[in-house]
């Protein structure tokens, strides 16, 4: 598994390196060797990354196949995938839902599903967390949380 993933990683880094190098070369300008332009340093780093990614792929191809690592596989565990989707949805909707409502829904989900608490426990814990964090950060430390549809 590691071998396969190292090849994928190497290809990914090669892609990043090419984008960085080409952008530096064509868009920013390298300047001269003695008087570097804004693209010079990024170009060098991109070049180094190209060598490294090719090296990584080369090493991975030569390496013997290792046994699968349970921590690595599956790449995205179901709990992790769903939690990430919920977190991104929360972040993108935070301005419209507001901190209190958005966070309440987020914590009910987190306590109910990945944590496996009962519904009523999840609701009570979420109320406590949202109220405490809102009071501490919003009231005491004056953090300007988004108000959202509840306007609070």
């Amino acid at each position, binding site marked *: 598994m590691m071998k396969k993933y190292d090849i994928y990683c190497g290809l990914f880094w090669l892609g*990043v390196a090419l984008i960085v190098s080409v952008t530096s070369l064509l868009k*920013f300008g390298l300047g001269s060797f003695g008087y570097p332009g804004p693209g010079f340093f*990024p170009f060098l780093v991109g070049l*180094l990354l190209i060598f490294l990614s090719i090296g*990584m792929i080369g*090493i991975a191809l*030569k390496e013997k196949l290792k046994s699968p690592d349970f921590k690595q596989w599956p*790449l995205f*565990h179901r709990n992790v995938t769903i939690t990430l989707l919920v977190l991104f949805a929360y972040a993108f909707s935070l301005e419209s839902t507001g901190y209190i409502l958005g966070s309440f829904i987020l914590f009910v989900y987190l306590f109910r599903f990945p944590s496996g*608490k009962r519904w009523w426990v999840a609701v009570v814990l979420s109320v406590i967390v949202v109220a405490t964090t809102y009071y501490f950060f919003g009231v005491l430390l004056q953090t300007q949380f988004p108000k959202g549809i509840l306007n609070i």
Partner: protein
Amino acid sequence: MDTYHYILLGLKVGLLPVNLLMCFVGVLIGTLVGVLPGLGPVAAMALLLPITFHLTPVTAIIMLSGIYYGAMYGGSTTSILVNIPGEAASVVTCLDGYRMARKGRAGPALGMAAFGSFIAGTMGILILMLVANPMSAVVLRFGPPQYFSLMVLGMTLLIYLAQESKIKALVMVCFGLILGFIGIDVLTGQPRFNYGWMELADGVGVVPLIMGVFGIAEVLVNIEDMTAQDVYETRIKGLFPTRRDWADSKWPIARGTAIGFFLGLLPGGGPIIASFSSYAIEKRLSKHPEKFGTGIIEGVAGPESANNAATASGYVPLFLIGIPTNGVMAMLFSALLIHGLQPGPLILKDHPEIFWGTVMSMYLGNVMLLVLNLPLIGLWIKILKIPYQILFPLILSFCIIGAYSINNSVIDVVAMLVFGVVGYLMRKFRYEGAPLILAFVLGPLLERAFVQSLNMSAGSYSIFFNEPISAVTLTIAFVLVLLSALSVFRKMAAEG
């Protein structure tokens, strides 16, 4: 002013009620972070950074530093009682600390970890006070070529000392540098790599990056497997080590202090390497090396002393040279910048209260930690029993609020989540976070020093080799690159 006057100034600053309070808050949170597996000091500092915007710079640094060395103390508790290190520098304490607890000697193990940490931490601070003034006089003569070479050496050392693959560490350095390029080029004012996104015009924020890579990623990894950890059920009695324990520990503590202080000075060194090195040296010097790993007090005293001494010495390169040596120092470096202070030799001259106030508060913080860690051990054990199912939503909530409150912007929350995914994948593919953060923080400085050096020499690269310090530093970096390359080729040859 001489050192004596600076110490008095530091005491005056450190003893201000607000600084005493924030030092206490810092060490308390640090101990908590150290005790609870899943949130290291870097993420905790990043989380609390926005809160420090309400504080003066010196109070902010005092609090953030408290979190750092507090976590070093707290980390040993989980290592000894649960066999799970609260943070990476306490990994090696598990080997003998947990065995001691199993043998009914949890008390002396916890006691020696706290006393060893206190002695080493205090000694580290004393040495730091003695070297600060003479060293700053030398560092003041440094120019861009010396800075460039030192930063190159720092990154090279980090790669050389990488625990996982060296190639992957180097890839992380490149990735950190690339992330650092995003935004306005400080030398020409030209926007780079933002691809028209206004949100990226100011570059990538260090707080969302660190919180994502360390905080969110840690939570995601733990969500995969939320099996409860058993806290070793024993009545902890006799926290004070016996006379025999002290006799066995005195030299490991002394050696741990020396090793820790030295390794903490090196870029890429820091508490983790220090604790492992101390353990290895104690085992080698011991008359009974076979007993290491079976629950002997030397295996706790040495590493715990080393990681605390390294914590103190990490402030030397940060404050005196302006180069962070590890992820935590990179966080402190960013905190100083955010508070409008440029770390480096001039900080001692222009703002002596920042450096000396922080150093003296560390002394006071070490005393507070001794009081917090020994009599309150029962409380920490209770906290250890909080299930992760309750803990992780709280960690996530602090991360979200921490990221949001930097600019009151959702963009920072999204950026943190994106870096959380990056950090999660880095764990899966065994990439280390420290080289990424350090390269990200040092990248813009490295580029600036490089271009300024060439401007000084009218475009000649000989400037990097004409200056003795720069030449020696670059030569060492070159040798380390060669050694790293050799080790990679040897490994490849061994694998056939």
